[in-house]
């Protein structure tokens, strides 16, 4: 791996005007009340209501979504139309796995920076509870052949070939979370990282507890009130907050959980991993012209972004690569990053990233530096919790951390921050923003 893949070119300034997201709702073993587009529409209409604009004000709609459901091909377009935006606005969906919701922001950023467009709605939406159960290839073949059988006799004969195993579905979510190249589940890649940097079970559990406590405090203080808009189901049920939060988590309780991915000795448990949730998030990006034209009040400006790749079996270290390069390219030390949002796919992986920045071998290989980047102060990391407490709707998370970083920097009267996430398959994205 060599030098950074992109540079912070000049171009026009790109503003983050505002954003909103749904609460992240825990998947409870069956499809939740909302599809990805339902979620995107509910977050989007609340955001658009705050900014009364003509229905053709936007030049583009981009939505990150990994698990597109069959009834919603190109969810970006369906969401745009359901939001009442003009049919003349192009809309496309992006998929780079866990980075999709940030890739949409970054693409919007580049379009505006280049001067091609002025106002873009960029989001992420995911309903992991809707990930389908699939038939095994053998069962599919059996069904297809049944359809081809002509006579009643043939059909009966074919029916007799049925095997009970055909009823066992393939859980697409489980399959999606397994890297097909290295044949490791995402949780196993976190085990690899934990091992390489000596992260203990206790450290991981301890990190998870702080994630819950930080989210609970943010909820209690009302810090998320503007960012999170309630979700309303057609049956009248209202979801007002990220319901995966467990402020009552203790080290004892977490210690009792068994490892999920590598029994019996693994360190990664359901308690120190991100939760499976449904949710959507949007950001409004604007050029200077759009800000003036529509009299908008931007909250932040996007300074730079960085995407990188690494070995799939250590995908969790990706943020250390991307965010590290982004900081260095912008002549920032770790201390210059006022706040860091590092998506909590797994506690072990978050801690692994911090350890990597303090690891001479890693820093030499990635940054071609003899000195380490150093210790990152955990008081500036994920200050209001993260995916461990509020969940990780994969296509949404990247968007959420940029949105939240913007709001958190404002609240804390801080200036610069980086949002970064690891991406299944061995990639990572990072984005540097500065509040106005």
């Amino acid at each position: 791996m060599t030098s950074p893949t992109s540079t912070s070119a000049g171009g026009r300034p790109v503003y983050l005007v505002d954003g909103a997201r749904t609460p992240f709702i825990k998947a409870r073993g069956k499809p939740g009340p909302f599809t990805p587009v339902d979620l995107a529409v509910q977050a989007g209409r609340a955001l658009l209501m705050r900014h009364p604009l003509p229905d053709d004000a936007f030049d583009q709609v981009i939505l990150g979504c990994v698990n597109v459901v069959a009834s919603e091909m190109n969810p970006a377009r369906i969401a745009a139309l359901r939001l009442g935006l003009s049919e003349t606005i192009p809309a496309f969906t992006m998929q780079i796995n866990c980075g999709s919701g940030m890739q949409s922001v970054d693409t919007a950023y580049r379009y505006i920076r280049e001067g091609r467009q002025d106002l873009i709605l960029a989001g992420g939406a995911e309903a992991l509870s809707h990930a389908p159960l699939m038939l095994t290839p053998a069962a599919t073949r059996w069904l297809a052949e049944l359809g081809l059988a002509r006579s009643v006799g043939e059909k009966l004969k074919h029916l007799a070939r049925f095997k009970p195993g055909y009823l066992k579905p393939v859980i697409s979510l489980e399959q999606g979370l397994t890297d097909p190249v290295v044949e490791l589940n995402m949780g196993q890649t976190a085990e690899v990282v934990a091992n390489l940097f000596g992260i203990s079970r206790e450290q991981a559990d301890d990190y998870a507890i702080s994630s819950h406590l930080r989210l609970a405090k943010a909820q209690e203080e009302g810090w998320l009130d503007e960012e999170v808009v309630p979700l309303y189901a057609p049956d009248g049920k209202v979801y007002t907050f990220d319901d995966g939060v467990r402020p009552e988590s203790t080290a004892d309780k977490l210690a009792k959980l068994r490892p999920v991915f590598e029994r019996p000795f693994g360190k990664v448990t359901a308690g120190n991993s991100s939760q499976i949730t449904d949710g959507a998030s949007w950001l409004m990006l604007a050029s200077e012209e759009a800000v003036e034209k529509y009299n908008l009040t931007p909250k932040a400006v996007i300074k730079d972004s960085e995407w990188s790749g690494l070995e799939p079996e250590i995908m969790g270290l990706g943020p250390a690569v991307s965010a590290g390069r982004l900081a260095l390219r912008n002549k920032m030390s770790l201390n210059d990053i006022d706040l860091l949002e590092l998506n909590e796919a797994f506690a072990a992986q978050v801690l692994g990233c911090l350890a990597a920045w303090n690891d001479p071998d890693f820093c030499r290989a990635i940054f071609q530096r003899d000195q380490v980047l150093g210790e990152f102060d955990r008081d500036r990391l994920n200050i209001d919790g993260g995916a461990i407490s509020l969940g990780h709707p994969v296509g949404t998370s990247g968007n959420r951390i940029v949105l939240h970083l913007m709001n958190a920097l404002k609240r804390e009267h801080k200036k610069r921050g980086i949002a970064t996430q690891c991406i299944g398959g061995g990639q990572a994205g990072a984005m540097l923003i500065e509040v106005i």
Partner: protein
Amino acid sequence: MNGMILKSLSGREKALGPFADFNETATSAWKHWKLKFDEHKIAWLLLDCDDADVNVLSQAVLEELDEIVMTLQADKPEALVLRSAKSSNFCVGADIKEFGQLSDLDEAKNKLSAAHNVANRFEALPFPKIAVVHGHCFGGGLELALTCDYRIGITGVSLGFPEILLGLHPGLGGTARSIDLIDPIAAMTLMLTGKTVRDKQAKSMGLIDTLIPERHVDAAIGAAVAGKLQRKKKSLKSKLLASAPLRRFSAKKMRQQAAKKAPPEHYPAPGKLIDLWENVGGDKDKTLAAEIDSFSELLLTETSRNLVRVFFLQENLKKQASAHRDLPKAQHVHVIGAGAMGGDIAGWCALQGLTVTLFDMKPEIIGKAIARASELCDKKRLGAAAKRSVLDRLIPDLHHQGVRSADVIIEAVPERIDIKRQVYASVEPLMKDGAILATNTSSIPLDELQKELKAPEKLVGLHFFNPVAQMQLVEVVRHSKLAEDTYHKALAFTGQIKRLPTPVAGTPGFLVNRALTPYLLEAIVLLDEGVKAETIDKAAEQFGMPMGPVELADIVGLDICLGVANMLRDSLDSTMPAAPDWLRKKVDKGELGKKTGRGLYEWKKGKPQKADNPPVGPDNLTDRLILPMLNTCMSCLRESVIDNDSLLDGAMIFGTGFAPFRGGPLHYAQSRGYNDVQQALQALKEQYGERFTPDPGWENAER
């Protein structure tokens, strides 16, 4: 959506045969019809009623059709296509205006026979006749389509026989031809209920032979001409059902069911229609002949006359809105308060295609309103996408963010002036130019509410009735500072959301609540005297009210009734009886009626538990209930709370369900004689007290 491209291509889709270049100002030999042969010698007959948006089968239209039949007999085409040139309808039925002009039975029979004659000769033309029906195809329109050999339905078509709602049954051969064409029980149900059937349902009934989008009309006509368009064959079951013994059996069941919906003593039409079925059903020619007599007799009944009057009362209310239809349509409504009224108003507006922001301080209350809107969509049988779109448009708003883009703001918060003023203070500065502020208050005079407003001229009352989705009436309430422009927007908006606007003055109780209150209070007094609730309700129902006053009080809520009654007593009429102590105690105990499960009745599963066969009440029971209501109506008219008696009668029928077959309270008083009403009130006054004092209006208004 802008629909820019489709707009630029509009007008291309409709198949009009030789009339394709429809804008040509070709002269026609007829005023309401156009006839032309295409290159395959297929005649295209377009119904295009002169100077109207909708087609109606007036006498003039039928007379012209008679001439066309003769033309076609002389110069026979290969086939004939019958369709409408109007954009939204095939034909909505007979010209109801003409009904009132007939007063003599023989004259009616002659007119009807002549019309039958045209239809029969059209039907007998010796070539295939193909009706292409789109949009509304009702009554006489459907009967005309039934004389054709084929009916091609266009997606979205709705068909039906609404005659029963006017106290009639089909009169242009519909009773014979519908029974002849489809399952006779289905045909009878269609005619007895007046309900419309759409699209697939009409196809599966066999009322239309095929259901296609407009773009396949030419191909479908081609198939019909070539005899390749399949028609549903009459089933053996249908034939059996039309046999005499089974007709007797089904007629009996129909009579029972009809009586439940419409008591035969007030509504004779269902019975006459069932007679037709029982006596001659299945024999087309005999039914055709019998229909003429039966229809003519119904036409002259008091019930039918009054129901026709109600139809025009409704048209009159619609006109209050349509007079201002040139005003720009509202796009966005902001509703404040997601309780029973506000939430349902919001849901209704979203169903009507508006963007709605719904404010409440508590998300759970908005959630409940959304659940009700979702149920409403199901009740209206919306498809999945249409329902989703309604719910997408109904946007929860915890911070009044929607106010800035709203054209209409409707306040429906609790009836307290301080709360309402607080709401106005926070909302008024956010309103955009041209927006209006409406209040759904039922009891606070608008001249009080407008006092602290910066722009009082933008305030108007829009008083909806509960349940919003069922009650068509909206009182549009004026006040001293109301601007003309605001008032017109309020009327137009009410029409836009398919409600009937009634302009009323902003005096206490406006019209409807003020007129209902003495009726409800008298019921309480009667209860106090020991008359059974069931007895009271039965008397009112027998008069023709949709439900008795005791049940109504429970549904409205005893707390609300008591509040309105006290307000009216204090501000208007001190002769009104004070509510008895036991009623106040009931309210204090939380026994408020249907909503709490107990009020004047016990309520189970949304139904009052009534004893069967209640004892007979005092002789003057009905008058004691109804006359105070009539008396208050007269006061309202005299005090110009409402402009005239037809608006008043319309408002009472569509706002309270006042016995429609009686034509409205004032019409009823008129047919009974104002003198008689006055004397009856005077007698009641002498017996029961001041509250029955006849209004001076009875003297002066006698016509």
